[in-house]
C-alpha cells in the first residue's frame, strides 16, 4: 500500500512511536496502545479515535507545528513531532478535566450569560476562555515561513469523490469525449470499497480493473489527497491539495461524495473505545491494527455483521452484536446476537470498561452490563450532501431511509452513489455510469435513477441522560440541545448558533443528523419539518494559509520602459503595487542633495495617464473634481483631488489642457486603474456627454527633471524657448525633447524648478539617456522614490493613500481651497457641504521635531495620554536641520506653533505644528 520501505519512528508528546510502512499516525498510536489522543474542547474529556476516516475532531494533533492535523488520514513519516492538543499539563492527567465535573455550572451558552457582566471583566474572561478552550495553536515562527500556492484548472466534467460511483462516472464521462477531473481526498482511489473487503470479495477483479481504467485513462486527471471544500457560482469548485488551493472550473459536476456513518447518541458515547464501524474497518484493513479484548457491536444493518466478522478474524472477542432489528439484519453465523436491543450507556473514563445493553424502548427493566473494551457502531449512513447543498440543490428528508437526499438539482450538478442515498454496490455503479454519461452530454442537472430504499427505516431510540454527546467538536450534549430549545432556541438555525453544534472542525459531519434529530424531538416535530441549516463553505476545514496564499509565479510584475537602465545603474527596487520602482540608486541622501542644489532625474512612468477628448471634457472635469476646470486655459496645468460622493479623497493628480477639447490627466501610481474605472463609470451614467477617455498609462513614459539647473539641462536637448515667460510655472507645453514629441508639465512635486516630461514609452530610454548626457556637466543624478519622498515632505506635499485614508476629506487634509462649494453640482458636493458645517475632526498637519530621530509610520500622537492621531510620514530633512513630517492631529492642536506629543521608541517626544511648507514657503524656487 505504500512506497515506504521499512518501519519509521516518530514522537508523540515526546514518546517514541514506531509505525509500520503505510500506517497513519493514528494507526501507529493505536498499535502502540495510545488510546487517548486528545482532550475535548470544553470539558477536557479524554477522547480517542472515533471515526478514523478524517471527519471527527478526536484525532486532531499538532504535527511538526501544524495545528489540527487529522492524524487518522495522515501517513506517518520518519521523525515527525506529533503533539496532543488542548490538554495541560498532559493528555493523561489534564487538570482542566475538572470542568467535566463542573458541567452543571457550564450549561449550553453559559458564556453568553455569565461572562458579559461586569463588562470590564470580559477581556479577562475572554483571555482565559481562549487559553483553556479551543484547539491547537498556530506556530507563528514556522507558520510565517510556509509558502502556499494557487492554481486554476478547467475541466468539462468534474467528479468529486473517487469511490465506486465516482470512478464509474469519470470513466463514462471520458468515454463521452470529455476531459474529466476526479477529485478524491484519499491516498488511493476506491472510497469505501477499500475498507470493507468482506462486501467486495467477489468483486475484487472488477474493482482493481476499474481503478486501473481510471488511472490509465489519459482524459481523466486524478487529484488525490485533494479535498473539494466548496462549490461556488458557475460551478467553481474549490479544492485544497496540500498547501495548494485549486480553483477548478467545471462544465458539469458529478458529486459522488458518499456518506458519513451516523453515530448513536447515548451517555458516554464519547469515551475512548467507542468507534464507528467504518473507522474500525479502516484501522483493520488499512493500518493493520488490532482491537485486543472484548467488543460489542451495535447495528441495524448488514455492515455491523461485516465488522464483527472482521474484528473476530483479527483476534478480537466479539461478546455481543446488538441488533436493533427483531430478526438479525444479516446471517449472524455463530456471533452472539442480541436482537431487538440497543446500547444504553457505556462506563469507563479513559477507556470503555463496560456497556449497558437492553431492549430498545426499555432501559431500566431488563438491561444488562457487559464488560468490554470496544463499542462499535454500525447504524447506517447519512448522505455527504454538503457540497450539493452549497451548490444550490434542494434537499429533502427521506423519511423511509432517514437521510437527506436531493430533490432538485442546481444547473450542471448531479449526484451518484451513497450521496444520493444509494448504498447498493451495483446500483452505485449504475448511477455513476449514468451520471457520467449525462454529464458528458452536457444536459442540465437532474436526479439519477434513485434506487428505492433497500433498508428498513431505522428504529428511533429515545436516549436521555447527561453526557450523551451529539457534538464531539464543541462538547454539546443532547441535554444541552433540549435545554436550548426549552430556552426558546427552537429553530434549527438559532439552535446551531446558540449551542455551537455543527460549528466545530467536523462541520456537522458527525453531529448534523443527531442535532436535527434532537431538535425535532425536543420540538415534537418530524425531521422533515425541522429541516437543516444552510450549507456554507468550507465543507471540510481548510488552513487559512491555503485560502490566503498566492501564486508567486503568477504574481503580476510591471516594469517601466526604463527598467533596464535602472538595473544597469544599480537601482535598489521597491515594489509599488505591481510596479518595480527604483527606491534609490544607492545613496538617497546624495540624490536628495543633487535635486536641491543641481539637477536630478526620476522615472515617474508609473503614474496613471489619461487622455480625454471631446466637447464636454471641461464639464465632465467640473463634475468629477471639486475644483474648477472650465476656465483653465489651453497650455496650463492644475492640481486636482478626486473625491467620492462621501467627500473622501480617492486620488490626486494633475489636469492639463493641451488643446481646447484635448486634456491630459495624471493619477497616482497605485490608483491608476481605480480612477480610470471611476471616470468611465461616470461617463457611462451620462452617455450624452461627448467625452472619449483613453488610458495612455502604458503607452506613455514619464520622467521628472528637477532642480535649479533643470532648465539649463532641458534647453540643451529642446529647441523651444524655456524662459519663465514662455514656459511659466504650471505651464503644459507640447515640446520636442531630444527629437521626440513630448508633453512637458512645469510642476514641482519635489519643490524645485522642474519639468515632468511625458514621451512615448518606446522612446523613453532615448530621451532619458539624452537628458542624462546633457546634464553630465551639471552633475545630474538619477533619483529614486526615497529621495522624492524626502523632497516632497519638505514642501508638505501629501501622498494620496500614504497620508490620506478612507476617512480623509479635503478640508481635514489641509486642502480646503480645492473645494468650490459654489459650483452647482459635483461628485461629493453634498457630503463636503455637510462636512464643512460640522466641527472639524483630525487635521493633517506638518510637524517639526528637533533632532534627527525619525518616528516610524504610523507612530501615535498622544494628547494627555490618549491616542488622538498618528504620524503618516516622517523623514530627517537636511535643509531644515530637523525631522519633518505629516501627522493627523486633533483640531485643537492643529494650529501653527502648537505642540504635539509623539510616541517614539516608547518615549514621548514633543514636536511643533507647522502649517506651511518647511522649505521655500513662498514657492520662489518652484516658480523661478
Amino acid at each position, binding site marked *: 500500500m505504500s512506497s515506504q520501505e521499512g518501519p519509521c519512528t516518530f514522537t508523540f508528546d515526546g514518546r517514541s512511536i514506531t509505525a509500520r510502512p503505510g500506517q497513519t499516525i493514528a494507526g501507529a498510536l493505536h498499535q502502540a496502545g495510545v488510546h487517548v489522543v486528545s482532550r475535548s474542547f470544553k470539558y477536557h474529556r479524554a477522547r480517542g479515535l472515533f471515526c478514523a476516516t478524517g471527519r471527527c475532531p478526536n484525532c486532531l494533533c499538532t504535527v511538526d507545528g501544524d495545528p489540527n492535523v487529522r492524524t487518522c488520514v495522515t501517513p506517518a513519516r520518519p521523525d515527525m513531532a506529533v503533539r496532543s492538543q488542548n490538554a495541560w499539563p498532559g493528555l493523561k492527567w489534564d487538570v482542566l478535566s475538572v470542568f467535566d465535573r463542573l458541567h452543571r455550572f457550564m450549561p449550553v451558552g453559559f458564556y453568553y450569560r455569565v461572562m458579559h457582566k461586569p463588562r470590564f471583566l470580559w477581556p479577562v474572561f475572554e483571555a482565559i476562555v481562549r487559553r483553556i478552550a479551543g484547539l491547537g495553536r498556530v506556530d507563528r515562527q514556522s507558520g510565517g515561513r510556509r509558502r502556499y500556492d494557487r492554481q486554476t484548472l478547467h475541466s468539462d466534467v468534474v467528479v468529486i469523490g473517487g469511490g465506486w460511483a465516482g470512478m464509474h462516472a469519470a470513466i463514462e464521462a471520458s468515454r463521452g469525449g470529455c476531459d474529466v477531473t476526479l477529485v478524491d481526498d484519499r491516498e488511493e482511489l476506491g472510497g469505501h470499497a477499500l475498507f470493507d473487503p468482506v462486501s467486495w470479495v467477489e468483486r475484487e477483479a472488477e474493482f482493481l480493473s476499474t481503478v486501473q481504467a481510471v488511472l490509465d485513462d489519459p482524459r481523466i486527471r486524478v487529484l488525490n489527497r485533494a479535498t473539494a471544500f466548496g462549490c461556488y*457560482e458557475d460551478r467553481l469548485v474549490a479544492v485544497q491539495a496540500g498547501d495548494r488551493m485549486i480553483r477548478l472550473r467545471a462544465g458539469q459536476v458529478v458529486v459522488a461524495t458518499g456518506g458519513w456513518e451516523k453515530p448513536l447518541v447515548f451517555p458516554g458515547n464519547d469515551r475512548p473505545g467507542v468507534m464507528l464501524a467504518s473507522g474500525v474497518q479502516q484501522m483493520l484493513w488499512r493500518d493493520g491494527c488490532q482491537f485486543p479484548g472484548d467488543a460489542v457491536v451495535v447495528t441495524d444493518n448488514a455492515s455491523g455483521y461485516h465488522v464483527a466478522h472482521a474484528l473476530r478474524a483479527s483476534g478480537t472477542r466479539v461478546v455481543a452484536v446488538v441488533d436493533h432489528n427483531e430478526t438479525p439484519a444479516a446471517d449472524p453465523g455463530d456471533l452472539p446476537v442480541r436482537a431487538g436491543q440497543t446500547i444504553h450507556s457505556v462506563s469507563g473514563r479513559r477507556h470503555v470498561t463496560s456497556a449497558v445493553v437492553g431492549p430498545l424502548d426499555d432501559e431500566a427493566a431488563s438491561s444488562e452490563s457487559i464488560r468490554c473494551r470496544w463499542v462499535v457502531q454500525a447504524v447506517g449512513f447519512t448522505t455527504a450532501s454538503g457540497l450539493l447543498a452549497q451548490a*444550490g440543490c434542494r434537499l429533502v428528508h427521506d423519511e423511509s431511509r432517514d437521510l437527506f437526499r436531493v430533490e432538485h438539482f442546481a444547473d450542471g450538478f448531479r449526484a451518484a452513489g451513497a450521496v444520493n442515498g444509494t448504498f447498493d454496490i451495483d446500483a452505485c455503479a449504475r448511477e455513476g455510469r449514468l451520471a457520467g454519461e449525462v454529464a458528458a452530454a452536457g444536459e442540465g442537472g437532474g436526479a439519477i435513477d434513485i434506487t428505492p430504499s433497500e433498508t428498513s427505516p431505522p428504529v428511533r431510540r429515545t436516549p436521555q441522560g447527561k453526557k450523551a454527546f451529539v457534538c464531539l467538536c464543541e462538547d454539546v450534549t443532547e441535554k444541552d440541545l433540549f435545554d436550548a430549545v426549552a430556552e426558546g432556541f427552537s429553530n434549527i438555525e438559532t439552535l446551531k448558533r446558540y449551542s455551537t453544534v455543527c460549528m466545530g472542525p467536523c462541520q456537522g459531519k458527525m453531529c448534523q443528523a443527531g442535532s436535527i434529530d434532537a431538535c425535532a424531538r425536543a420540538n415534537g416535530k418530524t425531521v422533515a419539518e425541522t429541516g437543516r441549516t444552510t450549507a456554507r463553505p468550507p465543507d471540510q476545514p481548510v488552513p487559512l494559509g491555503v485560502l490566503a496564499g498566492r501564486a508567486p509565479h503568477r504574481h503580476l510584475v510591471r516594469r517601466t520602459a526604463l527598467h533596464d537602465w535602472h538595473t544597469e545603474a544599480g537601482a535598489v527596487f521597491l515594489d509599488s503595487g505591481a510596479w518595480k520602482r527604483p527606491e534609490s540608486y544607492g545613496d538617497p541622501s546624495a540624490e536628495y542633495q543633487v535635486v536641491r542644489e543641481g539637477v536630478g532625474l526620476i522615472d515617474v512612468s508609473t503614474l496613471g495617464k489619461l487622455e480625454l477628448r471631446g466637447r464636454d471634457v471641461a464639464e465632465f472635469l467640473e463634475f468629477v473634481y471639486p475644483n474648477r476646470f472650465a476656465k483653465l486655459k489651453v497650455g496650463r496645468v492644475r492640481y486636482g483631488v478626486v473625491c467620492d*460622493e*462621501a467627500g473622501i479623497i480617492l486620488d490626486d493628480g494633475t489636469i492639463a489642457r493641451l488643446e481646447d477639447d484635448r486634456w491630459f490627466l495624471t493619477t497616482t501610481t497605485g490608483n491608476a*486603474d481605480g480612477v*480610470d*474605472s471611476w471616470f*468611465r*463609470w461616470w*461617463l*457611462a*451614467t451620462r*452617455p*450624452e456627454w461627448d467625452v472619449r477617455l483613453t*488610458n495612455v498609462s502604458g503607452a506613455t513614459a514619464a520622467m521628472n527633471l528637477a532642480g535649479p539647473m533643470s532648465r539649463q539641462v532641458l534647453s540643451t536637448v529642446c529647441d523651444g524657448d524655456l524662459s519663465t515667460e514662455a514656459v511659466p510655472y504650471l505651464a503644459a507645453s507640447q515640446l520636442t525633447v531630444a527629437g521626440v514629441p513630448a508633453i512637458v508639465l512645469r510642476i514641482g512635486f519635489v519643490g524645485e524648478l522642474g519639468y515632468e516630461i511625458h514621451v512615448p514609452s518606446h522612446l523613453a530610454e532615448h530621451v532619458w539617456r539624452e537628458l542624462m548626457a546633457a546634464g553630465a556637466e551639471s552633475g545630474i543624478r538619477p533619483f529614486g522614490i526615497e529621495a522624492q519622498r524626502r523632497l516632497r515632505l519638505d514642501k508638505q506635499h501629501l501622498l494620496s493613500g500614504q497620508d490620506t485614508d478612507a476617512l480623509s476629506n479635503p478640508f481635514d487634509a489641509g486642502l480646503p481651497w480645492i473645494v468650490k462649494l459654489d459650483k*452647482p*453640482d459635483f461628485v461629493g*458636493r*453634498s*457630503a463636503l457641504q*455637510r462636512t464643512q458645517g460640522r466641527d472639524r475632526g483630525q487635521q493633517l498637519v506638518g510637524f517639526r521635531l528637533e533632532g534627527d530621530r525619525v518616528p516610524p509610520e504610523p507612530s501615535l500622537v498622544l494628547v494627555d495620554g490618549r491616542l488622538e492621531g498618528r504620524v503618516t510620514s516622517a523623514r530627517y530633512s537636511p535643509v531644515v536641520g530637523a525631522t519633518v513630517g505629516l501627522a493627523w492631529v486633533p483640531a485643537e492642536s492643529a494650529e501653527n506653533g502648537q505642540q504635539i506629543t509623539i510616541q517614539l521608541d516608547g518615549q514621548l517626544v514633543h514636536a511643533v505644528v507647522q502649517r506651511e511648507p518647511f522649505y521655500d514657503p513662498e514657492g520662489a524656487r518652484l516658480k523661478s
Partner: protein
Amino acid sequence: MGEFHFGGPVRERPEPDALTDEWVAYTYDQPNRRAVQWEWWFHRAACRQWFLVRRDTRTNQVLESAMPGEVATGTHDSEAGDE
C-alpha cells in the same frame, strides 16, 4: 481578481438641491435586495467598459445585458418577496 467587477444596483443620483436625508441615503445606504434588478458591471480585465446587467439576486441568474443608455433601468427593478 475577477474579470468582471460588480458596480452595485443602478440608482438614481439625487438632484443637487435634494434633501440631506436623500443624499445621505444615496451616499451611505447600499441596498442589498432579493430582487430582479439592473446592475452596473465593469469588464475590468479586458475592454474596461461599464455595462448594465439585469440579474436575479436570489439565483444569481443574469437575465439580460445592455449598454448604458440602451434600456430604461428603473422600471424593471422589482422587489421580490421571500422565496
